[in-house]
């Protein structure tokens, strides 16, 4: 039992997977000697050698298509895309092949692989280093989309993702890489595909994933000080989407606010809100609100604080649903 950051937890999950399964390969840009720009793959090349852990040329479509080929040959590639904003060159390989390979081959040629993507903002980075592209992937049938919010879950979910028979897009909230948790890795893990109620409450349900989960917990604490107990749900995976856990909560609270950093329009929050509004219709006492990034390109670092949902904005939404 000791303190572990999300970065360490991810590193450990990769290490264990490399150790337990010979077919696991870790690849990407600068993930070898450098250990990745966020050091998530630190020391892995040293430990497992340059055949299992290796740098690729600078080409994301290449990384994706090459990984698919490796998966076909029986390997379990775990590819890192250096930043959210650099996954787009691979989009054709993702949508046209990775997502469809099991389907097209009637199950004969699945391509289990994991794509790790440090994502979202809040770290004062330069342009293209703070994006939240998860909805593009959630809308693509055939991909699993996973987002951990805590070190423990990062460890569990990455371990599960690597063992999963399907392609998993694993979005790591980079602003949480250095967050610590005091717990034993792997001690008690919930299966991918299940959301988790991380705080109980009855006034309203907050639904979030990634870095917005701790943000919602902060908000919940602030609300609590005003005597309002909100329930907080960590989605953990967008696909599969655990509507049941969300609906159960809303049946109790009658109100919901969905929070994410990605732009509002056609973001994953729309899916959550639309699904919930349908399935919990008779329990809703107020409209479901979304607190999200705006429909603008991710802003420059100096003003990003106005873009990423803040405790105040979430509190504002809670107020509105409570006073509806």
């Amino acid at each position: 039992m000791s303190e572990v950051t999300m970065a360490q937890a991810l590193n450990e999950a990769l290490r264990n997977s490399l150790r337990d399964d010979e077919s696991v390969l870790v690849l990407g840009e600068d993930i070898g000697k450098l250990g990745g720009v966020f050091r998530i793959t630190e020391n892995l090349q040293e430990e497992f050698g340059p055949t299992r852990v290796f740098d690729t040329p600078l080409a994301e479509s290449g990384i994706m298509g090459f990984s698919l080929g490796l998966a076909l040959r029986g390997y379990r590639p775990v590819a890192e895309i250096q930043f959210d904003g650099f996954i787009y060159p691979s989009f054709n390989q993702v949508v046209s092949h990775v997502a469809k390979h099991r389907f097209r081959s009637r199950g004969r040629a699945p391509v289990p692989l994991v794509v790790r993507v440090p994502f979202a903002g809040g770290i004062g980075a330069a342009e293209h280093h703070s994006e939240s592209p998860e909805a593009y992937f959630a809308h693509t049938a055939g991909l699993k989309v996973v987002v951990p919010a805590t070190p423990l879950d990062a460890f569990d979910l990455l371990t599960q993702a690597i063992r999963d028979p399907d392609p998993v897009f694993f979005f790591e909230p980079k602003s949480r890489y250095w967050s610590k948790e005091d717990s034993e890795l792997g001690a008690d893990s919930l299966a991918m595909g299940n959301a988790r109620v991380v705080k109980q409450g009855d006034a309203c349900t907050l639904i979030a994933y990634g870095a917005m989960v701790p943000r919602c917990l902060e908000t919940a604490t602030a609300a609590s000080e005003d005597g309002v107990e909100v329930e907080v749900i960590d989605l953990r995976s967008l696909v599969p989407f655990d509507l049941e856990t969300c609906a159960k909560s809303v049946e109790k609270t009658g109100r919901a606010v969905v929070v994410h950093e990605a732009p509002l329009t056609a973001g994953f929050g729309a899916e959550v809100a639309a699904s919930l509004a349908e399935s919990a219709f008779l329990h809703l006492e107020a409209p479901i609100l979304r607190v999200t990034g705006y429909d603008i390109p991710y802003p420059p670092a100096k003003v990003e604080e106005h873009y990423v949902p803040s405790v105040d904005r979430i509190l504002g939404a809670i107020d509105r649903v409570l006073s509806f």
Partner: protein
Amino acid sequence: MTDGFEDAVRLLDPSGRLDEKAAEALDLKEDDLLELFRLMLMTRRADLESTALQRQGELAVYPPLIGQEAAQVGSAYALEPGDFAFPSYRELGAALVKGVDLVDYLHFYRGTWHGGTYDPLETRFGMVAVPIASQILHAVGYAYGSKLDGSRDVSMAYFGDGATSQGDFHEGCNFAAVFGAPVVFFCQNNQWAISVPVSKQTVAPIYRKAEAYGFPGIRVDGNDVLATYLVTRQAVQRARTEQVPTLIEAVTYRLGPHSTADDAGRYQPKEQVEQWRELDPLDRYRKFLTERGLLTEEVKKGFDEDANKLAAHIRSGIVGAPPPDPGDLFEWVFSEKTKRLEAQEKELLEEAGDQ
């Protein structure tokens, strides 16, 4: 009009005469020489049958390969059973050589199932890849996996002249060179990418593009099955034993339309087609075999029967073949159905039941 053969390796001239000296490197027995012809003949026949089936509404669409039989058969014949071929959408001939049941292959074009109904891992023949050049990277990744396994398996990527314009072609070649992947890049330069002639696709000769990656690039007369076989065989060996990739440009010609949906008359000059018809790969090879005394009437008859049988097999397998069970649509999206997919499947089956 039929230029584009500069620097091309050629063993048989258009009249079927063999360059004996150049042919010394060939490792083909008489049986092989005949088998190449048989495969080309079957390919031609299967291709025509497929076009006919499309005209009759039994296939949704079909991209004929007529004119490219030597390129496909010669190259695929150079592969060993363990080698994996990654096709584009026009490689019915290569599929045949790799032992894919063409009915299973054609189910792609019937619209029965994306990827056809054969097992790509068992046949070592990838699923039809429509997004241009995308399959090239799969071939490279698979090849690198073979190398990591310490196996002797080689990958072969098939693609067209138009595909060389895509970024994935470039990234695939570069990855292969950097990782020393045992792969052969086999480009059928059939002079056209739908309506765009190769002269508007790129300025440099395709085989010269290998210079950009530091591995050999070779141009071959793709209507000469022996030259195509020889060049590919050497490239496959180089990949297998030295882990050096090769780019092969097989100069050939698309005698038919781009696909059955295409109206090539809008852009393909008639005279050009006529000139290339003179270079028909089957005619040339038939002359050679006949002159050698290998293609006796009896042998020919046997081959024709084989071709007829294949055509009949295709026809009986495709005509009226039932559509897939709609429930199949949810079976292989993931390893296990999500709750959401279960609900959707229920909805679809209920509606399908209603009909």
